């Protein structure tokens, strides 16, 4: 028996390897570098790794190849999305690395200590925070990058776990409000495992389907790579219940990560409980990864079943937009409000995904980048509004903030206007692009629902604006902390990108358009 070795294009997967190497190095730093020097080392290592990966990625911009034995596809969308994840992750790492706002940084050293115990109080008050958060974050980034370029369902599942497990742990690391943080992590973990089970079961069903098709004379057994699924799905009418059952379950697994209704239930609790920097990381990067994978699964593997899945996923998109928009109206906590807004945005992204035309891919990718910048900037502002107990996230506490600190209230107003899709912000352009693509693809019903819900959604954002500017500051209005250099950098990048992408979005739109072609 001879064994055929997989052909590996090392240059094409170099960004992945760099991220993995950086993560492994990060673990070694934890093991061998003295405690005092760890934070700086880790921060520099993570940022340098991300920049190096980005540089290598840019040199690979023209690569279009399926490599590693068909497990990884490096094509336009994969490169574009990997690049987006890296850039957004740089901002998130800047936020994570900020230590000037709170003594010892926003993280504790050990996530699992019983809340309220003597040890827990000691570690919450002690200066040093965990630097493990950096290797965790880099592992998650590696998982996300693999997730968007996985070319078979098993690789995709591995990537899903690699990106999820560090995130679960990172959620539990908040220095303040430990109980809520641990609760968030546990909920995220349990429901995430639950969703993973759906995904895996779906993979099994799809394998069964391809096997039943390929069992025809002269064919090999089934497979879970996207080319095989595509061939099987376009070819045979037999046992399509397996195909659709499998697709439904896989979609559920992915929609969970993307926070689409009714699989969004974890989002508000987790966004609220997790440390704010981590929430920003999840809201931006995880969303890119989840939708990148969803795009690939739907456009590469199940392209032939488009007419069958569009109505169902369209209904989910509408439900998601409705739930996100309507429930955000009554939120009183800013992080929960942003969570519901993130749910609604998942709905708009789904509209782009379901457009079914090439513009659908490119506009969805543009939306992901634009939204990522804005949402990280939003969470950066949230980290700055503090009182003695840490961040003050209750909406009533933000009343009159415009008087106390007009600059930050102005910045946050701009961010909220971008969320509301007001022209001259990236929010307007990205909604316009997504809805335009959906109209091109004949999905008028989704666009109508999208326009209506974005009207509803404008209300909660503007309510915050009105509250900040038109209320008198009360006794309990918190102060705005002076941001450290890292937070300031992340904030400036996010706001500038939101403005630039709103005024002159053409270069990025062109880039996403050139990149919007999958290979099979």
């Amino acid at each position, binding site marked *: 028996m001879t064994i055929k070795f997989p052909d590996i294009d090392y240059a094409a997967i170099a960004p992945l390897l760099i991220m993995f190497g950086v993560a492994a190095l990060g673990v070694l730093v934890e093991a061998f570098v003295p405690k005092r020097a760890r934070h700086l080392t880790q921060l520099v290592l993570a940022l340098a790794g991300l920049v190096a990966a980005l540089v290598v990625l840019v040199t690979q911009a023209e690569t279009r190849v399926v490599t590693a034995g068909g497990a990884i596809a490096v094509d336009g969308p994969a490169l574009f999305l990997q690049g987006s994840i890296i850039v957004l992750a740089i901002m998130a790492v800047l936020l994570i690395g900020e230590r000037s706002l709170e003594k010892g940084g926003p993280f504790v050293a050990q996530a699992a200590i019983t809340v309220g115990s003597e040890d827990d109080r000691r570690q919450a008050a002690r200066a040093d925070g965990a630097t493990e958060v950096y290797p965790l974050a880099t592992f998650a980034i590696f998982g996300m990058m693999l997730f968007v370029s996985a070319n078979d369902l098993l690789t995709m599942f591995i990537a899903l776990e690699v990106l999820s497990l560090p995130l679960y742990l990172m959620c539990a690391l908040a220095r303040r409000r430990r109980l809520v943080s641990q609760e968030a992590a*546990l909920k995220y973990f*349990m*429901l995430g495992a*639950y*969703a993973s089970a*759906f995904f895996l079961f779906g993979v099994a069903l799809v394998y069964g389907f391809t096997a039943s098709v390929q069992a025809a004379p002269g064919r090999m057994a089934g497979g879970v790579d996207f080319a095989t699924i595509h061939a099987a799905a376009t070819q045979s009418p037999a046992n*399509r*219940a397996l*195909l*659709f*059952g499998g*697709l*439904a*379950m896989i979609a*559920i697994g992915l929609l*969970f990560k993307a926070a689409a209704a*009714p*699989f969004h*239930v*974890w989002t508000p*609790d987790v966004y609220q409980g997790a440390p704010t920097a981590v929430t920003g990381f999840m809201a931006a990067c995880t969303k890119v990864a989840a939708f990148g994978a969803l795009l690939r699964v739907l456009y590469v593997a199940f392209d032939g079943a488009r*007419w*069958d*899945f569009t*109505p*169902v996923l369209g*209904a989910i998109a509408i439900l998601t937009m409705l*739930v996100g928009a*309507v*429930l955000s*109206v*009554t939120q009183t906590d800013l992080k929960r409000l942003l969570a519901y807004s993130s749910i609604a945005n998942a709905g708009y992204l789904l509209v782009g995904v379901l457009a079914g*035309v*090439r*513009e659908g891919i*490119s*506009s969805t990718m*543009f939306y992901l980048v634009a939204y990522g910048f804005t949402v990280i900037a939003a969470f950066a502002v949230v980290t700055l509004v503090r009182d003695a107990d840490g961040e003050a996230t209750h909406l009533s506490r933000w009343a009159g903030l415009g008087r106390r600190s007009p600059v930050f209230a102005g910045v946050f107003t701009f961010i909220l206007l971008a969320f509301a899709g*007001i*022209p*001259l912000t990236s929010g307007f352009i990205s909604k316009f*692009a997504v*809805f*335009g*693509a959906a*109209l*091109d693809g004949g999905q*008028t019903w989704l666009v*109508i629902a999208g*326009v*209506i819900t974005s*009207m509803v959604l*404008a209300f909660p954002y*503007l309510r915050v604006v009105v509250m900040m500017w*038109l209320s008198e500051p009360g006794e309990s209005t918190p102060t705005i902390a002076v941001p450290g250099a890292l937070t300031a950098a992340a904030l400036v990048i996010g706001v500038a990108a939101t403005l630039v992408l709103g005024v*002159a*979005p*053409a270069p990025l*739109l062109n880039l996403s*358009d050139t990149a919007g072609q999958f290979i099979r």
Partner: protein
Amino acid sequence: MEQTIEYAHATGVLGSVWLLIAIPLVSSAVILLLGRRSAKFAHWLGTAAIGAGFVLTLIYFFSLRDQPNRAVERNLWEFISVGNLKVDIGLLFDPLSAVFCLLITGVGFLIHLYAVGYMAHDERRHTFFGYFNLFAAAMLLLVLGNNYVMLYLGWEGVGLASYLLISFWYTRPSAATAGKKAFLMNRVGDAGLVIAIFTMFAYLGSTNYADVFNGVGGLSSTVVLLMGLLLLLGATGKSGQFPLQAWLPDAMEGPTPVSALIHAATMVTAGVYLIARSNAIFSANEVLQTVVVSVGALTLLIGCIIGAAKDDIKRVLAWSTVSQIGYMFLGVGLGGGAYALAIIHLLAHGFFKANMFLGAGSVMHGMKDQVDIRRFGGLWKLMPWTFGTFTAGWLAIVGFPGFSGFFTKEPIIVAAFEREGWTAWLYGWAALLGAGLTAFYMTRLWVLTFLGPKRWTEDIEHPHESPPIMVGPLVLLAIGSAIAGGLMASPVAKWLEPPLPHEAGHPEPVMSHGVITTLSLVLTFAGIGLAYLLFRRGTALVEQPAGVVVTAARRNLYADAFNEIVFEKPGIFLTRALVFLDNRGIDGAVNGLAAAVGGGSGRLRRLQTGFVRSYAMSMMAGALVVVAAFVAVQMGWLS
């Protein structure tokens, strides 16, 4: 008349037409960013920015005459380009946008000047001028864009500025509420505009004026009707027309210069601009024109009737604005040569209504912010300048022979009689009746304010005339009110010809011109006489019980109650129902099981929190539905 619309590329002086928007925008940004530090010079900077805009507009205006078609286009940069969707940041300077620019910068400059004096004692005057310049920039963007997306940008911009300025005195709950009301009702209209723009893109692949107007001929009449109705919805929202008229009178909570500039002279006429600009769409469908005419006729009557029952000087003027814009809608709806008539009336109205609002502001300035006309009277001796200028505005609006309104309103009434069949009688008489009612309520306002016995509140001893910086603009606007209509009527109609359709062999009116004019004059003088006789001795100081009609008019013909029942209540109910469902339905169903097993202790507390198990349950339910739906689709049950 199939002719292709093309615009020349802007060169030379006209190449810098973007400065018109940039100057007030930069000025606004400087003022707002400096905040309190700009308090010393903000008002002069803001006024100078608009003044510079006016000078520039004049230069552009005169260099436009040498251009082919008298229209130039300038694409600044590519805004959006996705697939075959391409939107440019582009400007179009043609006769229609030119006259609007002149109105915005010209009248705007005078109102800015007036506001320097009017807002002198307000400690947030710099902010006011920042918003005011922001408004001017957005309004200029609205009329200068060369595609519907640019128009929409300006549209949202003026909406924002209007919202900020209505609730400028945000410490007054009524001002904050009025701002919100204006914002929400405008959103309803904006939704129509957005969908209209999407429709254009879907059917024509472009939102450029030139492409859209050239492509309208090839569309089915249903699509044109849909597109036009959606545009009309946007126009009614912004212009305070039926059914979205209720926000405009409440918007008078803002400072008076705001009411003059935004809610009388410029922003509220954006709807008229939208329809006039889109004349290719509106002229292409007769049903559409009839709808526009009906909206105009209905609104002009609503405005008159409510205006006659109000006692707040600014609200009377506001309802009068609603009614006058109704005339303009009537004009643009009639089509053909009446487009130009509507625009001319719009310009004349810009002058005399701004004049009267500023006059009202001057009265309030001298009367310690009293707005109730029942507490005025006998002011003509004490405020001679205000009285004189206001009188010019009054004569202009009622259409007194020789004054503006006479030259601009009469042709619209005549044009209404030029429709075919019975509709000529319907709309013609509506317009005539409106003229009579206008004369009545405006005379009532004028008599109660300036003539008759003093009915002031006790704390006022000597009402004083306003300072020169406020009187100066008043005088200039009064001159404009008196003569603008007569001067502009025929040259402007000709000037507007390329963008607007020319007078093409219109049918004879059902009555002769002479009869119509006579009738209109008789009704006008009847209105004036009746009002003078009724109110020359003053009126009761408090609201008197009244019959059904007057009560209904005092209640704004129940439009607010209607909105509350039809829109607000179901909206609130929907939100509450969904929250209820999430709290009780999903969590409750799961916890209900747990409670049945484990006993009732702590059940209420559990109902409030989200447990992982209930989350998992709802995911499971969702998963079952999704899988079932997939299988159903596959079996052909759903598709």
